[in-house]
């Protein structure tokens, strides 16, 4: 892992930018570096920008890097990211971060764009024996749902908080966990998303007997 003062940025031309829904995008560029599933990149557009971190959403064998991001109202960097077009240059750091996927039978829990590292892990061959809870407000924000359904089958549990749809749990991932009769206290739970989601989910898990040492979280601060 490189430390902040040593983060090397290199320009990469954007190959594609897909508008997924009203405020979410999938940005891609061809890579010439290796990384571990679950790692992050710091991104800048201009040299003077304060870098922001984004999880890599593509697999370790994919030729391109995918970044899933959303534009938050009142924010400054992500709207500029959303304004880029293919051919524009993006300053990309070397891969960093320690929220790494394992081959074990872990439980993945994500909300919103927090699904990104799990997509990387899935596409990197780490989905065997995994259970995934994916939370979103609306169906169009259940990013990569078809890929996850194909890879995980019944072990893929989508949750929609603001829409009810047949076959999909109605509520947040925390509501889903609360209504379970039993929670697996042996497996490691990997959480990714906002601090609020992480803290609420971690509280439920530890209250229900999961040792805190079996809960690992990536917080999108």
């Amino acid at each position: 892992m490189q430390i902040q003062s040593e983060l090397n940025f290199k320009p990469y031309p954007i190959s594609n930018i897909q508008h997924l829904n009203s405020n979410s995008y999938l940005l891609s560029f061809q890579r010439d570096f290796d990384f571990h599933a679950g790692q992050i990149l710091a991104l800048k557009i201009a040299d003077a920008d304060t870098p922001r971190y984004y999880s890599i959403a593509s697999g370790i064998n994919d030729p391109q890097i995918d970044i899933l991001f959303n534009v938050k109202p009142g924010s400054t960097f992500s709207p500029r990211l959303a304004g880029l077009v293919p051919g524009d240059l993006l300053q990309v750091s070397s891969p960093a971060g320690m929220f790494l996927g394992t081959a074990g039978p872990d439980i993945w829990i994500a909300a919103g764009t927090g699904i990104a590292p799990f997509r990387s892990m899935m596409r990197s061959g780490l989905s065997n024996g995994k259970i995934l809870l994916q939370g979103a407000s609306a169906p169009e924000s259940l990013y990569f749902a078809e890929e996850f359904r194909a890879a995980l089958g019944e072990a893929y549990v989508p949750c929609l908080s603001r829409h009810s749809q047949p076959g999909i749990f109605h509520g947040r991932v925390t509501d889903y966990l609360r209504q379970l009769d039993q929670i697996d206290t042996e497996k490691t739970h990997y959480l990714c998303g906002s601090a609020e989601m992480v803290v609420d989910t971690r509280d439920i898990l530890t209250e229900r007997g999961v040792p805190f040492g079996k809960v690992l979280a990536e917080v999108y601060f």
Partner: protein
Amino acid sequence: MILLGKNLDELEALVRAEEMPSYTGMQLARWLYGSEAASFAEMSNLSKQSRTVLENKYQTGFSEHVKVSVSADGTRKYLFPTGGGRFIETAFMPEARRNTLCLSTQVGCKMGCLFCMTARQGFQANLSAGEIVNQLRSLPERNRVTNIVYMGMGEPFDNTEEVLKSLEILTAPWGFAISPKKITVSTIGLIPGMIQFLEKTRCNLAISLHSPFDEERRKLMPVQHVYPIRDVIRELIRTDAGRQRKISFEYILFRGINDSDGHIREMARLLNKLPCRVNLMRFHPVPNAPLEGADEASLVRFRDALNAKGIIATIRQSRGIDIEAACGLLSTKAMLSK
């Protein structure tokens, strides 16, 4: 427009734009930060015309507390309102030889530390420099404060720009003129903000350590996935920060978690190249946190073992336990009761 939180350059630009005499900028700074004046009307050396312009177009930004809880040990915990019906906490801790003020920098926090009550509020807003310095300016005991610590709600380096501006106002001769040696900013180790802080201020730095082991710290503090403590320390050594200011590490001792001999050895290894000290802290349980504080004997043993390894360690006195001293508890309750 609110004036509290503006630095001298900004006040001078403002008085120029209002076609007031140029020295009014300095006068305003003195009234805002070095006086007891509660309104523009009380700023008696400004011309009547200037005062009228200020009253019509600007607000001072002074904001009184809405609640205070007083502990048996004299600690007073104030609840200050901020924008959007939100609340922040400020603690005034009088002691025999000094009186410390503990400031908040955000409403809630995004960092999700396992042992923290503020984390359970989620993140709601960054405080402006004005809202940060108001916690001193509008404090009833403001003239008794000798030391300031940024250890209240929020992570200071997730709001770096406003925090640095507040430090400029607290330390500048035209501001509160407090020595940077009397101010300590506490962080969990967000490296980019920390580097800016080291470059731009001479204030002291405290870093929340809580475990010297990577895996364990990741479970207590998710930030370790992004900014491992080893990298934070390397950055401090690289910038020679320990010789320019006091650096301390905060360590809450949790029973059976981070209180072993192995932890002592690893802390000694981690910190041996950095002039610093360790503050051992008692844990005051917060609802739902699956952690227990270590007992007094463990604290003393841990301190003595660190000292024997050449690391200066002290046990921090707990303050205001009877008034919900766990950072964030009071404001969480205020928020939930709304």
